């Protein structure tokens, strides 16, 4: 029953998000049906576009998992953007600095991204555990520290040949893009990251549902006082949870900067970090839900450009829809009340 309730609230939030999008399209004098048709065709109409949707969903899956993992422990990290940046920077640094066969390169880069993200996540975790510093505030600070780190590190050490504002191109032997996937998806951005993301989703599901650690983390999330009373080392579990969440976001950074993209731009706090909040919420913090909602947001993101090209609707409609969905996912008590009312009526009839 809980699964149905989650599904109902998720669908209701999506519906209201799309409705808000439709109202905006109407408001600027465009036809919403046409707009949505182009939006979804842009995400799905041929193999290449489906590939791009999957590539976008890859990063979103990982940031969504990062958020969901921390949520399950009752922690609200919004540090995925910064963790993506340091993860991407670590992977880029190795990618540009080392020259090994691809089979050795990629694991090393992914490992570096994981470690950098984990470190960036562990700091707020430690501050929370040791000094009771609120993780929302510390992750915001760390996001900006990461932003400025990249802003100065890229031009100083990894400068592109002509442009000061981006890093040099990641060479072929260090990119998550591989020829067979590119050929299979007819030249899309699809890359090995998708397997990383799916593996992580499975791993997170196993850890959360089948291990003692997962049980303890969830216990802390449900009621930290009860967990403490039961003998769980709550501060340590919180730090660990934020560290793992950071590791996932660091990997997300690798799939984006050395998979989807070919270099790192400076002066951008990646929006996928915040979108991860939406992905996790809509997916009810379950790994399967995260994968599905990442796919949905992937369609919106990769379709909005096409819609913008075919109509006069600005591409920001995609982000607006996502943001409205988060808002309604956060106020899901509205829908659960409706759901409870419906099921209560059914029960009375029976």
């Amino acid at each position, binding site marked *: 029953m809980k699964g149905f309730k989650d599904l109902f609230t998720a669908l209701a939030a999506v519906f209201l998000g799309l409705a808000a999008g439709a109202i905006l399209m109407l408001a600027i004098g465009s036809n919403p049906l046409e707009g949505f048709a182009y939006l979804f065709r842009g995400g799905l109409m041929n193999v290449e576009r489906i590939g791009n949707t999957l590539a976008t969903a890859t990063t979103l899956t990982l940031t969504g998992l990062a958020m969901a993992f921390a949520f399950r422990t009752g922690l609200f990290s919004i540090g995925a953007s910064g963790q993506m940046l340091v993860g991407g920077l670590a992977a880029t640094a190795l990618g540009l600095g080392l020259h090994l066969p691809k089979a050795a390169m990629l694991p090393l880069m992914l490992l570096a991204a994981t470690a950098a993200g984990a470190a960036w996540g562990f700091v707020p975790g430690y501050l929370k555990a040791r000094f009771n510093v609120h993780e929302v505030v510390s992750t915001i600070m760390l996001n*900006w520290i990461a932003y400025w780190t990249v802003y*100065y590190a890229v031009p100083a050490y990894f400068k592109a040949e002509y442009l000061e504002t981006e890093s040099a191109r990641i060479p072929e032997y260090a990119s998550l893009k591989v020829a067979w996937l590119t050929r299979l998806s007819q030249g899309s951005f699809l890359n090995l990251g998708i397997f990383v993301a799916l593996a992580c989703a499975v791993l997170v599901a196993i850890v959360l549902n089948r291990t003692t650690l997962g049980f303890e983390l969830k216990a802390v999330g449900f009621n930290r006082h009860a967990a403490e009373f039961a003998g769980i080392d709550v501060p340590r579990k919180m730090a660990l949870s934020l560290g793992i969440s950071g590791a996932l976001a660091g990997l997300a950074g690798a799939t984006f900067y050395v998979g989807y993209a070919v270099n790192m731009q400076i002066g951008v706090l990646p929006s996928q970090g915040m979108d991860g909040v939406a992905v996790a919420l809509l997916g009810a913090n379950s790994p399967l839900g995260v994968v599905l909602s990442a796919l949905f947001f992937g369609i919106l993101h990769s379709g909005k450009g096409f819609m913008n090209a075919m109509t006069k609707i600005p591409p920001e409609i995609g982000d607006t829809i996502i943001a409205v969905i988060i808002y309604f996912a956060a106020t899901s008590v509205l829908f659960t009340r409706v759901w409870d009312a419906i099921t209560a009526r059914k029960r009375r009839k029976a």
Partner: protein
Amino acid sequence: MWDMVARIFPYAVAYSMPLLAASLGGLFSERSGVVNIGLEGLMVVGNFVCAVTISKLQPSLGQGAIWIGLAAAALSGLAFSLLHAVASINLSANQVISGTAINMVSTALTVFLARTITGSGNVHITLGFVPFDVPVLSGIPILGPLLFTKTYVTTWLLLAILLLSWFVLYKTPFGLRLRACGEHPQTADAAGVNVYRIRYAGVLISGALAGLAGGTILVTFSGEFNGTVAGLGFLALAALIFGKWKPLGILGATFFFGFAATLANVSQVVPLLARIPGIVLKAFPYVVTLLALVAFSKTTQGPRAAGEIYDAGKR
């Protein structure tokens, strides 16, 4: 050295004022018990509405358009913060998520509208406020050049709002009730305070002030809406914590951040500063906030009920 300080100071003051306004907004919201990390987004909304209003009215009204623009900015921030109020007060949403949603909606929606209005994502205004020297006072040695030269009229307005905020929070029944709702809403309720209404007031005031902050950025140093306020809303949140949730503390913290940010911005042209790596200057406010959070963690806490959903049945 003195020359440099005297030259930078007015810019630092101008830069800290929007921070001050937004941070005071955060103060009202958090002291009433509602965390508002949507400040950044509310500032963007204010910035956008102010830019559109001024660019439409300036041809016919001239200087007066700026004031109308600022009023519109505050009103739009207030209206937009209703979303956060409804979600976090009536619908028991997680306040941080609701705030995040506000941030995302406002950046996406304003750029969406800006593109529809101007074709590009930017809105320019031709004229903002012009800095002026305060007569007589600017002649005072030391203090004159620092505080009373090249000041904006908004600076004085916002300092007046700061005083007013202090007075409202600490010297009026409303302020007492607001603070009570942020510490222990059940007790306030038992004493006959309508917790919901007070929290609405807190969030709406924060929206108006954040909107005004966004407008101030536009009419003083930026002159253009481009879809972002560059993290100033988050910095305002940091200043709120750094200032220990008190008006005067916030003034100190925002000025400190404003000065640090201005130093970072001008470091290229000042030989003394050019030797310090840019990253140190830019990351400085954030690192200091983290350190301050650690240092204060034992002695200060924010409003005790901030971020918690009010449940009248809980004791």
